[in-house]
């Protein structure tokens, strides 16, 4: 019992720390953090009071309490994956619309002002900012 207690507690607190740090550095948005914080709190709760799990297993007629835990965890992860797939689909639709819009705006611009500068991929700007941007990202950490 004490090993599940320690493991659950350590795992929960570690995850909580990571989530908090990511939130602080603005690497994670609140709306995605909420579900994980709830998961962590549930884990810690179960680690502190394992009888919660055994009792609910009894009530539901699950012989091995761990199986109930696995079932719950798998369903939760499945649900979150589906939710993320949905978010990706939404983002793809948005980028598609933006890409189409960019192409049309560029065409409009060229029609109004003559051909614009060559493809960005053809030219590497001397003061390419790629590296600087990386450095800035690191500063924020």
């Amino acid at each position, binding site marked *: 019992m004490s090993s599940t207690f320690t493991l659950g507690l350590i795992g929960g607190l570690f995850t909580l720390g990571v989530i908090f740090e990511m939130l602080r550095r603005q690497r994670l948005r609140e709306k995605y953090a909420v579900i994980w914080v709830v998961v962590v709190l549930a884990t810690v709760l179960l680690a502190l009071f394992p009888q919660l799990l055994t009792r609910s297993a009894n009530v539901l007629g699950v012989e091995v309490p761990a199986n109930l835990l696995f079932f719950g965890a798998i369903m939760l992860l499945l649900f979150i994956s589906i939710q993320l797939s949905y978010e990706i689909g939404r983002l793809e*639709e948005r980028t598609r619309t933006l*890409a189409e819009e*960019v*192409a049309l705006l*560029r*065409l409009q611009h060229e029609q109004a002002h003559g051909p614009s500068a060559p493809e960005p991929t053809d030219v590497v700007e001397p003061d390419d900012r790629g590296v600087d941007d990386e450095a800035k990202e690191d500063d924020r950490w």
Partner: protein
Amino acid sequence: MPLRPDERVLVVIPAWNEAGIIATTIAEIRASRPGLDLLVVDDGSGDDTADIAEAAGALVARLPFNLGVGGAMRAGYRYALREGYDVVVQIDADGQHDPTYLDTLIEGLGEADVVIGARFAGEGSYRATGPRRWAMWLLAGVLSRLARTRLTDVTSGFRAANRRAVAVFADHYPAEYLGDTVESLVIAIRVGCTVRQVPVEMRPRTVGQASQSPLRATVYLARAVVALGLALVRRWPAATETLGQEKG
């Protein structure tokens, strides 16, 4: 119904890495019917497709990355809607669509909102076998029933649309594979557009060949079933945040 002299026609050519053939295609279209506007939608090509098309005198919209035919075409329909074109004709860049049929397609708009240039409809000698054939049979059967007319080649990318259909496609043109051809027709029919087909002869592709391996054909069949099934059960009107922006 012949085209009114003041009707403006835009030919949209979705093109992805077609540098070898695009100039010929453009020249052929120009020769077959003068006075057309040509828009090549470069679908994130890695080669010189866009530059060559521009040099050949077409308007070129360059998508920053590859979206597939559906994305390229929706951009084309949006352009047509904003610029006030009366007719949009879609032609593949690879030269398999014979532009001499352009007039036939456009004249077909006299009695329909969408006209498909169809193989198997009397002209030409294209034959498919096995699962690919079943897929085409299934798609053609279901869509014929929906459209209340005989359609034999619903995956054809050779089609003409009038203002009414252009306004619909500018908003709703699926990017999914097979969605661009099949689902777009279902959408058109659902909003009350009439769909007809005219027989055309397709030429063998000059560059590249459609895969005919049994496995690929089977995958194609499965995708066709999924695309068609989804198109039929989807809620309408579609409520996506990026839709509904084009008011015409």
